[in-house]
């Protein structure tokens, strides 16, 4: 299992664009990936569940992957989040 905590800074929370980038990345990995924010959790491969998390800027997202390649998945997702954050 691998985990990472990332504070969301996209300038508008996890709205369509950043959420799509994350879900697309999550789907490239065979392992199970979940996002959690506060008490809410979502299957990272479901755009509808990720949007329903309603993550706002400044909130912390817990990225967790289980299974083969879990570390790669968490690393890649953290990377995508970093890119979404910069937005430059």
């Amino acid at each position, binding site marked *: 299992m691998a985990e990472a905590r990332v504070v969301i800074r996209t300038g508008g929370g996890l709205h369509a664009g950043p959420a799509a980038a994350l879900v697309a990345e999550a789907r490239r990995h065979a392992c199970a990936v979940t996002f959690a924010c506060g008490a809410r959790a979502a299957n990272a491969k479901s755009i509808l569940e990720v949007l329903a998390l309603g993550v706002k800027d400044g909130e912390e997202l817990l990225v967790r992957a289980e299974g083969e390649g879990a570390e790669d998945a968490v690393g890649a997702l953290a990377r995508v989040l970093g890119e979404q*954050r910069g937005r*430059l």
Partner: protein
Amino acid sequence: MSPGRRFAGQGAAPGIAIGPAYLWPRRGQAGRAVAAAGSCRGEVERLSAAAAVAREGTREIVRQAGRTLTRAEAGIFEAQLLMLDDPNLVGRAEEAIRTGGLSAEEALERAGAECAAALLRAVPDESWRARAADVADVVGRVLDALAERPGPSLPSFDHPVLVVAEELLPSDIVALDREKVLGLVTQAGSPTSHASILARSLGLPAVAGVPSACELIREGDVVAADGASGEVVVGPDPVEAEDWRARQASRREWREGLRSRAHLPAITTDGHRIRVAANIGTPDEAETAFLNGADGIGLFRTEVFFMGRASLPGEDEQCGVYGEVIRCLAPRPVVIRTLDAGDDKALNLVASGGRAVRLAGGRSSQPASGHEDVFLAQLRAVLRAAAGAGEDGRAGVRRPGEAEVRVLFPMVANLADVVAAKALLARAAAELDARGVVRGEVKVGLMIEVPSAVALIGLLLREVDFVSLGTNDLARLTPGPAEVAIPTVLRLVAAVADAARRAGKPVAVCGELAADPRAIPLLVGLGVGELSVAPPLVPEVKEVVRTVSRREAAILAKRLLTARPAEGGTGDG
């Protein structure tokens, strides 16, 4: 004649439109027969075939959106594409067919309603509506495919109209005939809905949230709408109508001027040229930048090529991509930002052949030892591309010196970062020379995006040819609410611009601030020589620059930055 009836909506996309109303048909109203459920297997197959058709249609929208919209707006449709693959939508509908004996249509509509309701429960504010509208958009597209309709058949107008609708979905907006649609008035929606965001991006005047618009406005009524104030007038008297038409014409003239002047330089009223460049992430965007008259690429974020790959892109592949961008914009300069190695969470990992490679330790752009190869490969690729060398090392169509290539190091926090980055660049050049590979020269710049770099700016400037300010990250790393942080960020910009002027080196701004019409005069006044913005925004930013007097803006900026905040106000740090 009596004056027209007035309605107050919300301004959703600025602009003036006046013309005959066209009442948009309610989606699905026209002959969506409630199909009797066929065999369970048959319905599941119909649904999955329809989802495939909808997916292809959405992919086409994503492709088209990429050409006219910014990356953030195109993301709306990328999210829609993912919804079509979402187990909670089509998957749940299939389950309902199997267990409830529903028709594909019924099962899908039910699953869509559940998804929208789940979004509302989780996000009980305005933003959920934008998301729920996306679900409706996607469901509508699958229903069209199930009915074997070509999609909501777009009405063809023989004269320009003002579209009046209950609600318009994102895909409706991008499919509108821009020649024939003057503007939009909708009952539902708000300035934050995705449809409004897209209307703004396409320059289509829109007013949202006009109660009962579809009942109060009849087909053919003359309607005037102000997309900035939200004012809507139905059946204006001739004098009033004339006034609206004049405003529409002058606005259109301004927009046409924008387009016709996009390829001309942006020169302030007192004769200073401000370069307006584009921020891009992919070679496709380079073309959009070129078509919009960008004076170059002010920021090419190369991370995009490193994301979500099973293996790292090699030197040859990177060289090909960089070369494509350079050729597209030649002879304009291209700034290539190296990997953002200094993420403050130290989470910057790139999947590499199944193993995670940590690109940097800590906060600096100094690569952790042992992983320098990733950077060296990128720097070699940039140096080769700068010589016009193609993927196979042949000399390309461009000769050295025709286009200036600049390399930009991100997240620099101290002098050691710069020294290390420059040493790597020298090593990359030496490696190519040893291999006998043709390479070009590049200018070196720093991305100033952490406050500590501002403090060290004098020292840093001695090491490089130019600096570029990433105002988004500066704002993020500057504590306090936005109204306090923004003037503080401007003060940081002022400090950097001042030092750069003394050092005789150019300074660019490539954050969102660079595209903000209120900030542009201040940035110009502070001495910023280049603004780099999303490709579609280039013409407008140029036009704003043309209204600015740098001398007056400098006085204004100075006054603003030395002003004492009003007592009890939020102040400016």
